């Protein structure tokens, strides 16, 4: 494992890391009830934090729990244990007023755009709805203005806004859902694969618009994606997920140029070998890891800091740091 040389150099994006986290969670566990005994553990102690103004990419294989984590951060489902905090307040202890504020400031873009909008509503009304709920637009004209500007950002014209969801193409719907999340100019946008149904050119356009809006309003983005080249191109920081926990996180340039965790390495090279993931005790990557040691099967590795804001969950990095 020679190529795993930890380097931690300052990058411009690391300056972001000094600011306090805006939204985050600590040791979140989520167990879904299922007919399996004891339920299904989708998240096994995941911690993540999003800072103001950053674009955090969350990558990981299908089924690793990205959507579950994103939904928990957005307050859509309750974690089995662990806590979510917005600013410095834990979500579980928020009163209804704070909660409403949280709902206003944190917006979620779901993964399935074709199920994410009310089929009986016009797209325009669906996009305008967050404004109406939070009484952000005083007049019809103001509302129209806001909806139009955010829709033209994502490339939807008025003629598309006047239709119902079933009359739009997959990609158009996906953009409508993104527009709905951006219309309130929130502090955090949690976007679950927001460009999976777009062609490269439209994708590039949307990503540029998102980055631009981010710069204008200073919101933070959690970007769940499978497209590694996209993640590399746009993110400031990356978290890699495996089996319900974050196994590596750090500045994007560091993680992509010198991945530390053996899993990240295989993910980036696109050549993970076996299929089975270890859901028992020990490291989740144990059954496939080339560098496994005795300790790995006994207990799951804790988070080791290998540099500034760079952490890895792997026993390989346990001794020196």
């Amino acid at each position, binding site marked *: 494992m020679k190529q795993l040389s930890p380097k931690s150099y300052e990058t411009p994006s690391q300056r972001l890391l000094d600011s306090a986290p805006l939204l985050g969670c600590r040791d979140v566990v989520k167990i*879904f009830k*299922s*007919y*399996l005994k004891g339920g*299904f553990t989708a998240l096994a102690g995941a911690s993540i934090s999003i800072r103001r103004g950053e674009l955090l990419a969350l990558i*990981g*294989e*299908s*089924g690793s729990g*990205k*959507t579950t984590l994103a939904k928990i951060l957005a307050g859509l489902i309750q974690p089995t244990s662990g806590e979510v905090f917005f600013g410095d307040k834990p979500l579980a202890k928020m009163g209804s007023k704070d909660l409403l504020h949280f709902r206003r400031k944190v917006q979620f873009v779901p*993964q*399935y*755009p*074709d*199920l994410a909008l009310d089929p009986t509503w016009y797209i325009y009304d669906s996009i305008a709805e967050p404004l109406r709920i939070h009484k952000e637009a005083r007049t019809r004209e103001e509302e129209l203005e806001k909806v139009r500007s955010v829709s033209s950002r994502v*490339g939807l*014209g008025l*003629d598309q806004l*006047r*239709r119902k969801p*079933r*009359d*739009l*193409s*997959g*990609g*158009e719907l996906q*953009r409508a859902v993104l527009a709905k999340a951006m219309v309130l100019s929130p502090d955090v946008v949690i976007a*679950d*694969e927001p460009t*999976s*149904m*777009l*062609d*490269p*050119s*439209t*994708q*590039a*356009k949307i*990503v*540029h618009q998102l980055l631009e809006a981010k710069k204008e309003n200073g919101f933070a983005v959690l970007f769940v994606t*499978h*497209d*590694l*080249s*996209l993640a*590399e*191109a*746009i993110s400031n920081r990356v978290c890699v997920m495996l089996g319900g926990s974050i196994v590596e996180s750090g500045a994007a340039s560091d993680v992509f140029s010198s991945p530390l965790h053996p899993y990240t390495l295989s*993910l980036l090279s*696109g*050549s*993970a070998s076996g*299929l*089975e*993931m270890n859901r028992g005790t020990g490291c989740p990557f144990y059954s496939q890891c080339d560098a496994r040691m005795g300790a790995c099967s006994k207990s799951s590795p804790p988070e080791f800091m290998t540099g500034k804001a760079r952490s890895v969950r792997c026993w390989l990095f346990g001794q020196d740091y």
Partner: protein
Amino acid sequence: MGKIIEIRDLCVDFEMQQMRVSALNGVNLELQRGEVLGVLGESGSGKTVLLNSVFRLLPENARSSGEILYCGNDILSMDRKRAMQLIGRHFSLIPQGFGSLNPFLKCWLQISERPMEHFNMGKEEGYGTAVRLLGDMGIESPEKAARSYRHQLSGGMLQRALVAMGISGKSEAVFVDEPTKGLDERKKRLVIDLLQLAKQRTGAMMIVSHDLCFLKEVSDRVCVMYCGEVVEISKTRDFFASPKHPYSWALLESLPSRGLKPIEGENPSMVSPPPGCRFNPRCSHRSVRCLDERPPLAEIDGFKVRCFKYV
């Protein structure tokens, strides 16, 4: 090599209260036996509408003209019941959205629905097939996934369930709408393997996708659509080496690996498309002629392209 499907002059319009959306405008396309045809194009350019027309799935407000020939029979004008029977037996569709999965049926029932309905597959076998297909695509515990409902599966798993739905029974042609969205590289590999295996068993495949690397790997020919028109048809190798149409060229330039440069200008409106060449407002090779004359789909040594640059 014969043609399985031949689409001639297909036009599809949607009538709405205040507008008329022209989703397809004179599409000519054929699917040869034994080939994989990749279809790519701008979001909203009519790819899904094209597949839906073949399957007679267009909504009530759609007005279509032209022909879709299968063995000399026009699917579009055929009696609906007979058409559905024919389509069900010979073609299968992997739809784009997860909305086409029924939330109240277990996954395996939907995966094996087509063979169970059209080819007398038994329940046991249906379940077995579903589990095997899901396992082949790298789902960790396929039995559990097969017995889950829609909301219990992750996006990538649902996507693979959709793919399984398309290849669970034998068919002469499989029509696939974005099979790799939401899948990571490794799962994509497995899906590619499985599709290629399925291709050997079935006649032909038409794959709509935005994932150019994926198309590069699996397809024999690609067809590029823009604003309801076919603008280029080439051999895959030629296309990725040297795209002909200015839109294709700009599309390849906008990949994240090439710097994420979007094509300048707005997406065209399907309600009032630009006159002349529909790409002209965004084209850097535009000439006077492009502004008011529709370029024909010209055939030039092995590829077809709809652009005046080549005529």
